[in-house]
């Protein structure tokens, strides 16, 4: 089959590789009908995530048709149309049973690597480094799905691939970010990053009762999309984010701040951003965290900082004093996708949201590497790329 393989920083190749096979009794094989490039795939593309190896197959947002099931998978049949959560969860450990699917105790065969870095290991992920399990990803024609009796989510025929594909990651991720922000009726919510996850966080914040949502970015097209989702916007290339938020909230500050940027923040021109750029360039730091710094500094007293953006290492110059002084709550982590899928499918079916609004490009799988390049550079108003195997 064809698959997009990682070969180093900004070096992806479409290769012919063997088809996947069933390795464990709870596995299934899915023929991929649609797959997408995630903003977090760009962290791999840019070489920010450790424990990648040459030849790894990328991709964690995908859906398709079940073509083979292992002996212990009884709820799926050949031909079922399913969306697959990007987090791999066994469904039976204490973490899974508590709804913390992305913290599954059992799904990472390389848990020892994560334990060395983080103390304890979270769940395995598709196509996201060996530290997260080394699972082959879904930017391929076929993919092996472990624990297929609890992961793959059957979707109704009347919905198109593009309407349901993002149940695999970014819709639940944006929704969980808004839920983690503990939004009360009429609250003001600020969202850093108006990429796909930020846009879903904006829509979700309104669905959860926010009075106002303020989107922060510097790409005109993305700011325009945020406005079309109902948000007010701040362009951080032109305005001081902290000053502008203070004015817009009448000196209260936002009730909740959502960092939908993560470890490769641009934060143009600020002292913190220059410091991070220098330090990561010298390999003395792993993460650029200007968005997180701003979110903490901007957040109103007693507020919540919710972090769907990915961080990987040890963060430098975190304004912990500000977080402490204002009594902030910080919530973060990979998305518990399994738990959100049924609820969010309901929102798609009743017309509350059509997730396909984020798609800007549809290309063949074999054009994947060029699509990564375009997405990275935000060329041609690129917000979301769907790949067709």
């Amino acid at each position, binding site marked *: 089959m064809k698959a997009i393989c990682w070969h180093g920083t900004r070096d992806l190749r479409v290769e012919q590789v*063997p088809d996947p096979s069933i*390795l464990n009794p709870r596995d299934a094989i899915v023929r991929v009908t649609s797959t997408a490039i995630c903003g977090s795939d760009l962290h791999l593309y840019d070489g920010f995530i450790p424990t990648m190896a*040459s030849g790894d197959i990328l991709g964690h947002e995908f859906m398709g048709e079940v073509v083979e099931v292992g002996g212990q998978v009884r709820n799926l049949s050949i031909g079922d149309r399913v969306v697959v959560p990007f987090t791999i969860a066994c469904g039976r450990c204490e973490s899974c049973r508590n709804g913390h699917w992305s913290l599954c105790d059992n799904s990472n065969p390389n848990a020892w690597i994560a334990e060395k870095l983080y103390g304890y290991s979270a769940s395995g992920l598709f196509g996201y480094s*060996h530290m997260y399990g080394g699972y082959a990803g879904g930017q391929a024609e076929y993919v092996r799905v*472990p*624990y297929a009796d609890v992961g793959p989510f059957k979707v109704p025929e009347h919905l198109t691939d593009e309407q349901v594909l993002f149940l695999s990651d970014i819709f639940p991720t944006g929704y969980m970010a808004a839920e983690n922000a503990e939004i009360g009726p009429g609250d003001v919510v600020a969202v850093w990053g108006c990429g796909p996850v930020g846009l879903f966080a904006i829509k979700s914040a309104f669905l959860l009762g926010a009075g106002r949502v303020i989107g922060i970015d510097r790409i005109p097209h993305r700011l325009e999309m945020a406005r079309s989702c109902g948000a007010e916007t701040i362009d951080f290339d032109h305005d001081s984010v902290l000053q502008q938020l203070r004015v817009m909230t009448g000196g209260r500050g936002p009730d909740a701040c959502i960092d939908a940027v993560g470890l490769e923040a641009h934060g143009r021109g600020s002292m913190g951003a220059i410091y991070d750029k220098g330090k990561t360039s010298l390999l003395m730091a792993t993460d650029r965290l200007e968005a997180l710094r701003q979110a903490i500094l901007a957040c109103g007293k007693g507020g919540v900082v919710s972090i769907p953006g990915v961080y990987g290492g040890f963060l430098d110059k975190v304004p912990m004093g500000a977080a402490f002084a204002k009594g902030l709550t910080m919530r973060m982590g990979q998305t518990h996708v399994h738990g959100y899928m049924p609820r969010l499918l309901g929102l798609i079916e009743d017309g509350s949201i059509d997730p396909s609004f984020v798609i800007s490009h549809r290309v063949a799988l074999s054009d994947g590497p060029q699509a990564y390049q375009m997405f990275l550079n935000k060329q041609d108003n690129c917000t979301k790329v769907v790949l067709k195997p």
Partner: protein
Amino acid sequence: MGLHRNVNDWERVASIALGTGLLVWAARQRSGRAVAVPLGTFLAARGGTGYCPVNHAIGRGRRRDDTRAALRGRRGVKVEESITIARPPSEVYAVWNDVSNLPRFMPNIERVDEIGGDRTHWVACAPGGIHLEWDAVVLQRIPGELISWKSLPGSDVATAGSVRFESANGHGTRVTVNLQYSGPGGKVSAALAKLIGRSPAGDTHEGLRRLKSLLEAGEVPTVIGQPHGKRGGLHLPTWVDG
């Protein structure tokens, strides 16, 4: 008489040299013979036979044939690891108590056979593809709570340990392994194994993690055998493709 060798080769050479030296010296002297002759005779005999009653008394030189001696004090490598499994102690105990299950979750253990009378024969694969074999006997078995064991004379590895199964207050079972071992090369080989990423503590923890996966998820997670693109580079880490 069972005078097994308990003096190493260099020490035997030194004993013979020193003992005969003392005897030659004593033959030329008038005074000091009362001490030099018996001492010289003792050293020469110790070197010649390779058996030393003093060593025997203090337990020196009885490695591996005597598990207690091999692991006493600071000898041997000590491991303590623990994990919580969302299953009742009786179930976890039952899986462990059937030794044929152990290779399913213990890294490097290739085979464990029951050989009768609470005795088992173990075959392990050590770093570098070396096979190690030993027999062990169960010392104590409390159903649902504890199993302890030690290796028997004639083993490649001297080992003793226990595994405890305790109720974890609504979280299932807390499994705790305490283990000591002394293999060929002792602490030096243990340190070398650690350099290439294999330590007894790491292996034990990995084993417990796999037992947890087996009992909770019904299978041990794996990516061995899945497809990948061309693997480049000369220094592919050991964690890639198993």
